[in-house]
Structure formats: C-alpha cells, structure tokens
C-alpha cells in the first residue's frame, strides 16, 4: 500500500527507455519516502519481462498478459490500471509522456479523480501549505514543468487526491541500474477480472512502427536537416559530417515528409526530443513543432540562407550560407584542427 508505481510501456517485448528512466526516479523517491517501487507491465508474451525492470530497483512487477492487450488500446489498459490502483492504493504513479502515456494517464486520473501533471521536467518531495484551507501537507510530490510555451515554470501539487500522477518525456530523467541481481516479486493480474469485453472495442487494423536501430536521443552531437536540404542525396553530406564528429543525423518533419530521410530520424513534437551538446541545423526554418524537440541543446549552430529563419533566434552561431558549401568546410577544418 502507498507505494510508488511506474507503468512500463513495451514495444515488441522491449520495455521502453522512458519507463526505465522513470523506474530509476521512482526508486530514488521510494527510498526517500521509505516505501516500495512497483512496476506494471501490460501486454502480451510477457514471460520473463521482469528481468528487464528488476535491475532498476522494482520490488514488485505486476504483469497483465493477454494477446488482446498488445498493441496498446486505451480501454483495457485503463481498466487494469484503475482496478489495480483501487486495490493497491499507490501514493504516486508515473508513466512516460508518450503517445501511450498521454493517452492513458488522463483517462486513469479522471477515473480515480486524482491529479495528473503532464510533461514534468523535475520531480522532488516537499511540503505544501494551502493558505486558503489552512492546511499543511508533508511529503508531497512536487511536479515541476514548463508551461505557456516555456515562458513559465510551474510547481504543481496534489494535496488530497491519490495517486499523485505525473508523466515525463523520454530523456528527461536518466536511467541507472541499481543491481543486476535485484530481487523482485512478480505478481500476475487476472485480466478477465480487471477488464470487461466492452474494453476491447477499438481495433488496430494496421501498424507501421519502425524498429529503432538508431539512438538519436543518446547522440552527443546531432546534425539535422530540414526541407532546405533539398534531397535524399544531400542528406549524405550531413551523414558525412555526423560520422566525422561522432554524431547522428536528425531531420525536421518537413524533410521526412518530403522523403529525404527516414521517419525515425524526425526531431520535434511528433518525433524525438534531443539534448545533445551540439546541434547543427542545416536548411531548417525552425517552426515550433521542430524546435520543441531540440531547443535545449547545449550549443546550436544554424546554417541556412534565410536571415529571418526562426531557428536563428535560438542559435548560438548563425551561418548565413548554403550548407552544401559550409558542411564540407566544417569537415575539412575539423580534420585539420584535430591533428
């Protein structure tokens, strides 16, 4: 009772990085609150899946294993979590701020009349005084997140309602293995008891998810191309630069939609969020849908021929020129200076 729960999402039998990151955070908070960390995994063919999450410090792994539960649809996952949470009464529940977490989280929190804060960038424990009701609370979860387009940072608390729920984007927290031999207890959920036939009314008739061979999120340097790159061939130039610098190639949605680049390289609101130490943007205008996914890069270099491109306002260096001229020079001078 009163533990920290993390909903872990899976894709083709692999637990998502964001879930592992949240388990790490959950472990830290559970230590501070002197309670347990429990993971929930809902899907199909889950035999042995606890081996993926136990090393991150999960004391209990709940599994709901049924072929109707994969791929994800809202209602059965919602029913299972709601019923499990009513039974186990967690004080805190986390899930990734992904297309799954942001679909499921609000539904679960509405059913339990609990508070949910989305896209948290920081989670700490603290006290709260409600001046209006003249009540003080201790050991609350502070859910800290940007809002108003990033113009403010808000600290949100859920004083009365449980669980205190938060979603966090991938890459915001760091994952860390506590102990490869961490002892965990697997508890199996009776799917038919927690769901009803009416939960299975949405049908997934087609699914095209690219297996991630790439690790753009983890790349220290990203060389990204936008619509201005102009062609698939030109993207090879960006790959050359990325290879030489030890980075990865990313792309804006416009470049992906135009067929210059694979979708899994897409950076932005409907792609990945990256925070590399260096982000080189070639032929990218910098619409918010893209910049939302890279604005926290440590150093940003924008290469384009448009002085008024929005991305120029974010950049530390703005090179006004054609990337086909600039990128080969960057490669040359890198090689010269690294001797």
């Amino acid at each position: 009772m009163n533990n920290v729960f993390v909903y872990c999402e899976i894709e083709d039998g692999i637990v998502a990085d964001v879930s592992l990151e949240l388990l790490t955070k959950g472990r830290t908070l559970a230590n501070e609150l002197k309670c347990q960390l429990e993971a929930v995994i809902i899907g199909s063919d889950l035999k042995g899946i606890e081996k993926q999450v136990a090393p991150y410090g999960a004391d209990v792994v709940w599994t709901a294993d049924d072929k109707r539960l994969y791929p994800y649809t809202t209602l059965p996952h919602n029913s299972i979590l709601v019923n499990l949470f009513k039974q186990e009464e967690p004080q805190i529940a986390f899930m990734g701020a992904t297309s799954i977490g942001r679909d499921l989280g609000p539904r679960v929190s509405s059913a339990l009349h609990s508070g949910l804060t989305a896209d948290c960038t920081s989670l700490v424990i603290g006290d709260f005084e409600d001046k209006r009701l003249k009540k003080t609370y201790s050991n609350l979860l502070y859910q800290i997140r940007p809002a108003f387009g990033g113009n403010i940072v808000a600290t949100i608390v859920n004083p009365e309602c449980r669980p205190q729920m938060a979603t966090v984007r991938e890459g915001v927290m760091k994952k860390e293995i506590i102990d490869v031999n961490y002892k965990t207890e697997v508890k199996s959920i009776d799917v038919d008891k927690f769901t009803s036939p009416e939960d299975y009314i949405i049908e997934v008739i087609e699914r095209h998810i690219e297996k991630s061979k790439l690790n753009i999120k983890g790349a220290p340097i990203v060389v990204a191309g936008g619509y201005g790159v102009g062609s698939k061939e030109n993207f090879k130039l960006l790959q050359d630069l990325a290879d030489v610098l030890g980075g990865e190639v990313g792309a804006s949605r416009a470049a992906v939609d135009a067929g210059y680049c694979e979708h899994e390289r897409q950076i932005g609101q409907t792609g990945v969020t990256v925070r590399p130490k260096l982000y080189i943007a070639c032929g990218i205008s910098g619409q918010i849908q893209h910049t939302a996914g890279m604005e926290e890069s440590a150093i940003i270099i924008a290469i384009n021929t448009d002085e008024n491109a929005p991305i120029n306002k974010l950049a530390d260096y703005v090179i006004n020129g054609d990337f086909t001229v600039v990128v080969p020079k960057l490669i040359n001078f890198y090689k010269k200076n690294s001797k």
Partner: protein
Amino acid sequence: MKGLKIVVLAKQVPDTRNVGKDAMKSDGTVNRAALPAIFNPEDLNALEQALRLKDNNAGTTVKLLTMGPDRAAEVIREGLYRGADGGFLLSDRAFAGSDTLATSYALACAIKKTEFDVIIAGRQAIDGDTAQVGPQVAEKLGLPQVTYAEEILKVEKNKVTIKRRLERGYEIVVCPTPCVITVNASAPECRPRNARFVMKYKHAKADSEMQNATEDYLSLANARPYLKISEWNVNDIVCDHEELGLTGSPTKVKAIENVVFTAKESKKLGTEDNEIDELIKDLFANHTIG
C-alpha cells in the same frame, strides 16, 4: 448514411508562440496578459477534420463548444467563418481556477445537453500543454477515445477509421461511435475563413456580448436567429458545484516562476574559410567537439 452530429472542443489561448516585444517586461519575463488571444492551433486542426467530414457526409453538422470568459465567443465566430454551423459558449465565474479535471467535468456536463456522434478536439493547448482534457472528457462521458489522430479516413454506420501518428510510425484504428478524437498538429491545416461566411456571421454574438447592443443590432439579431451564439452558465448545465473550479481541482499550483530571458547574442558568420576555421577552433576549445 445520415449525417453526423459533430462537436468540436476549442479553446481560446494566449499566443505563447509569438511573444512580441510588447509582452516582454523589462525584467525579462513575459506579461501573459499582454499576449493576444487566439484559437488554439491544434483545435483548428480538429475543426478541419470535422469540416472535411461535413464536406463528405451530407446532413453533417459541426458545432463548437468552448469554455472561457465572454471574449471566447470569438472562437465560435472563427469556427463559423470557416464553415461550422453553430456553437456554445460555456462561461461562468464558477469555472475559474479549474485544472484539467474540473474543466473536463464542466465540458462533459455541457456536452450532455447536446446530441452528438463524434467529439473532436485538438490534442493539446499551447498554454497548458497537457493533452489531458480530451481523454478526461472521454472518460467522464464513458466514451472510447482515439488520440494523436492525424486523419479521419472513413466514417461508416456506427464506426470511424482513424490514422494515428505515433513516435516512430503510424497506426490505423477502427473505433465505434460515439467517441472522442484528439487531433495532432501533423494533421492537415485548417481551411481559411470563407468570405461568404464572414459576411453572414460577423455580427454573431453570445448573450453577454449583447449587453451594450443597440436597437438596430437587436432587430437584426431577431430577424437572423443564426446570429445568436448559445451561451450557458453553471445553471444551464446539470452539474455538482463541488466538482467545479478550484474546489473541483485535485491539482493545485504551488508556485509559478517566470522564466527570465536574456537577449541571446548569436554569433553571425558567413561562409569564408577563416570564419569556419575559427568556429571549429572555438568548438574544440570549449570541448564541444573532439
């Protein structure tokens, strides 16, 4: 197949994307009250999906529902200018301070006053950025939901086929109606205003906007009932007052910190050899590369 009754949930939001110099205070923080109010962008994507369904299914009606102060009626007018058939403004001080749960509760109570087959909303608003209201409204109405919709592909009797845009690909799902759909920014842009509709609806007003109406306006409004934007307050909807506003909000704001923006000085370079060489040397020097 007879036409669909579609309700589009739309929100008037401060334009957090285009912070002009007038909204920047001297201490480097944003004066949110000075930001112009706009139709939330993803709600426009939602409206477009609704209008396309109207284009392709005879007898379909599209009505907007917005919760906000009086001036949120502008959102309804904007919808009318683009092809919607009507709208409802849900407005009352009792809703002030609502978090997403209390907002969804109020919206769900209002929706129960209308007939609908499909509810379509934008995925998230640019002020709160939570993406919570859509799914929470669905939960309160006991309806299935499909989020991250990029395109509504097909509507048949009692079901709708939707393409969803996910992080590393897409998915096509079939969902029974009635249902709630939330639409992404990756969906098609909303069609522009139609001049004919602007002429027709430019005088449309909600009740509270009629306070200072002239005699002339009142006779115009009487002669043209389509100019009346329905307005509901807390007494017009069946709801539990404990679930509204601050009281009905499980989440409380403990603190708000304004982000202080310092003028970013970007170094501007051309493409000359020496400039690129300098840049590379800089990046080596601060250990960004190498």
